């Protein structure tokens, strides 16, 4: 039984966490939340230099050709520090979309840039509040290009291209739209988690390239999201661990009635529950990591299990971390808010708890 990360992978983890400790303290997140910047460009540049954006891109396209286990390690560390960068959009979603479905010329055109960070990509599926995959698609690919609007697009204001779901003769397909091209307008929107920028994208006859099989757009999205779910789960595990650490440290320091509040069972058992949920999420994410890195048939089940566990652990940990901090916990001055916002954002992106609970059971039944 060797159900753990390799020594090399653990070394990568140590490098990553040391790097982020130095380059992404909570003050970095606060700077983006309080300021007008969409993301931390300096941090992003350094992350690119570390080669993290190139992790799973094959060497032939200028990537490092490492396994998804390495990417999971990086995801957890980025989650721990609530990193204000477009990593998830560009790496988990856009890069994956091209790796899985891009034609050779598209890969040639973009993977190298993604690897070296000169391009940022994102995935755009939502057109209104609600479940995108079953809401009907207003964006349409016509003779002169792609027309329509996508909302709540993570990093849409800074991305070089977006993978967009659009209706065409074949049904709904995926298209790559160069966001710097003509026929594209974008507007940054205010968000619940200002450490991650979002935008509304409006297309009118924008140039667009088909990605993957025509008419199979939603199948491709589901496949991409299964893979991204594992990586998001690792970010959620990382965030939950940070919340647990913060809550624990505060509860040990904070005294009431002559003893640390960490000694009261209400707090002890609260922290124990955070630990339990986080451990379950982490172990399920191990399974997801294994399935992702081996392209196992169990991936849909493993991904849904990791995602549901990750959503539940991070949301609970972030909420109860504030609760453990008491009055100071809900002040702007304290850092608890960043985890609380990010936990919610990571729960909404690619669909929430309920949607994935259903996917999980569907996968169980197929597996059985």
């Amino acid at each position: 039984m060797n159900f753990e990360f390799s020594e090399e992978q653990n070394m990568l983890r140590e490098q990553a966490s040391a790097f982020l400790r130095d380059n992404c303290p909570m003050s970095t997140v606060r700077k983006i939340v309080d300021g007008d910047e969409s993301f931390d460009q300096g941090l992003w540049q350094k992350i690119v230099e570390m080669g993290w954006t190139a992790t799973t891109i094959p060497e032939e396209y200028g990537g490092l050709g490492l396994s998804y286990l390495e990417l999971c390690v990086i995801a957890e560390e980025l989650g721990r520090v609530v990193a204000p960068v477009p990593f998830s959009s560009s790496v988990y979603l856009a890069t994956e979309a091209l790796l899985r479905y891009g034609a050779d010329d598209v890969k040639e055109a973009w993977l190298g840039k993604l690897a070296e960070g000169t391009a940022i990509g994102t995935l755009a599926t939502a057109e209104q509040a609600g479940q995108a995959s079953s809401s009907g698609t207003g964006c349409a690919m016509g003779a002169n290009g792609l027309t329509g609007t996508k909302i709540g697009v993570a990093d849409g204001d800074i991305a070089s291209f977006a993978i967009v779901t659009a209706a065409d003769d074949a049904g709904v397909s995926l298209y790559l739209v160069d966001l710097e091209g003509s026929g594209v307008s974008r507007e940054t929107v205010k968000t619940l988690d200002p450490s991650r920028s979002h935008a509304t994208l409006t297309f009118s006859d924008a140039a667009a390239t088909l990605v993957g099989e025509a008419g199979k757009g939603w199948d491709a999205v589901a496949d991409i999201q299964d893979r991204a779910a594992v990586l998001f789960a690792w970010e959620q595990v990382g965030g939950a661990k940070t919340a647990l650490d913060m809550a624990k440290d505060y509860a040990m320091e904070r005294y009431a009635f002559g003893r640390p509040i960490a000694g009261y069972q209400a707090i002890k058992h609260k922290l124990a529950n955070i630990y339990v949920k986080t451990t379950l999420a982490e172990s399920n994410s191990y399974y997801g990591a294994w399935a992702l890195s081996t392209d196992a048939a169990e991936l849909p089940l493993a991904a849904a299990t990791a995602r549901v566990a990750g959503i539940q652990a991070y949301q609970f940990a972030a909420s109860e971390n504030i609760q453990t901090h008491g009055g100071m916990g809900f002040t702007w001055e304290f850092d608890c808010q960043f985890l609380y916002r990010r936990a919610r954002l990571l729960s909404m992106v690619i669909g929430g708890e309920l949607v994935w609970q259903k996917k999980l059971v569907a996968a169980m039944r197929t597996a059985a």
Partner: protein
Amino acid sequence: MDFNDTPQEAEFRAEVKAWLEANVPSKEELEGLSPIERAKLWQKRKYESGWACLRWPKNYGGRDATTIENVIFNQEEAKFDLEPGVFSIGHGMCAPTMMAWATDEQNQQYLPKMASGEEIWCQLFSEPAGGSDLAALRTMAVKDGDEWVINGQKIWTSGAHYSDFGVIVLRTDTSVPKHQGLSYFFLDMKSPGIEIKPIKQISGASNFNEVYFTDVRVPDAQRLGAVGQGWQVALTTLMNERASIGGGGSGRGTVTCDTLVELCETINLDGKPAIEDSAVQAKLADWYVKEAGLKFTGYRSMSALSRGETPGPENSIGKLVAAPMRQDMAAFALDLQEAAGAIWDSSLSEGGGEVHGGYMGAPGLRIAGGTDEIMANIIAERVLGLPQDVRLDKGIPFTEVPTSSSS
């Protein structure tokens, strides 16, 4: 069993309704006034017609009304969209304490102006070191002639910046156990040496302040109760706070079952309105059970009120049940929106971003006015009569109580 008023109650309610309809200020009247000015205008009008602070004695500016009459007035008044009370702390907590502990002269002097809205009062109890352990407060008052000199910091003071007076608990003796070294005063918030800083919450709002005291002088005549008796006086204030704490965020800006049902009727899940989904229904039902249960628990205490009984600590369940529920409801409402839920913009968000505000406001609901954990303790101890938590600071001089892992 019915939901009806008794004949007398019905008569009183009719009188109230009539007066309100005739006197509630029109949009035009309020045009251009600040929220405070609006509140003061309305309070003054109520006062002049004898509809302010109904429970208070007439000679202090009240109406000598019964509790149920007061409830009826509040119910009817709540049907109009008026500024939420900047007076609630003064009227609900400071005044009862004054009536219990101040001299008749003092009450004659201050209460009518509080009733008329001319003067606003606030409460200065909590401190950074205090939290749930309120009596651990450290702000000192040192006797100097017939005055006391205050140094230290208070926190979580609502309305400090627009208040004229405040009630405050101070440490006047550090050599005795914490509850015995406290004294209670009321003071002029405009006194020199008081500095007020608003606290920004994660919701973006600033409902509270930090209040810093540097050599602030208060006359000994403004002490309520004996020196060292401050905790007993504070309990009067706190008992009235519990009574005045509502259903735990059933007020503005919180997510209700109606909000959620509305959202679920419109938002899509599996190609149908979310409300047709069985899992959504199970959650809605559980929340409705709690919301309705609290509503009807309220009806039961109101029935007790109308029999002249006084409601007990049972009301603590309102906040304990509602606050975490509001948090779950908001999170769920956001989940249903998927990627679009990330957008928080009154003009772009589904429902104007109300659930976003609810999500960011919920942590405050679960903490302010007593954390979930404190509310559970209150129910366990005061309703069920279970033992208090072990208190390692019992009987120890305040200076010797451990206050941090380093001490």
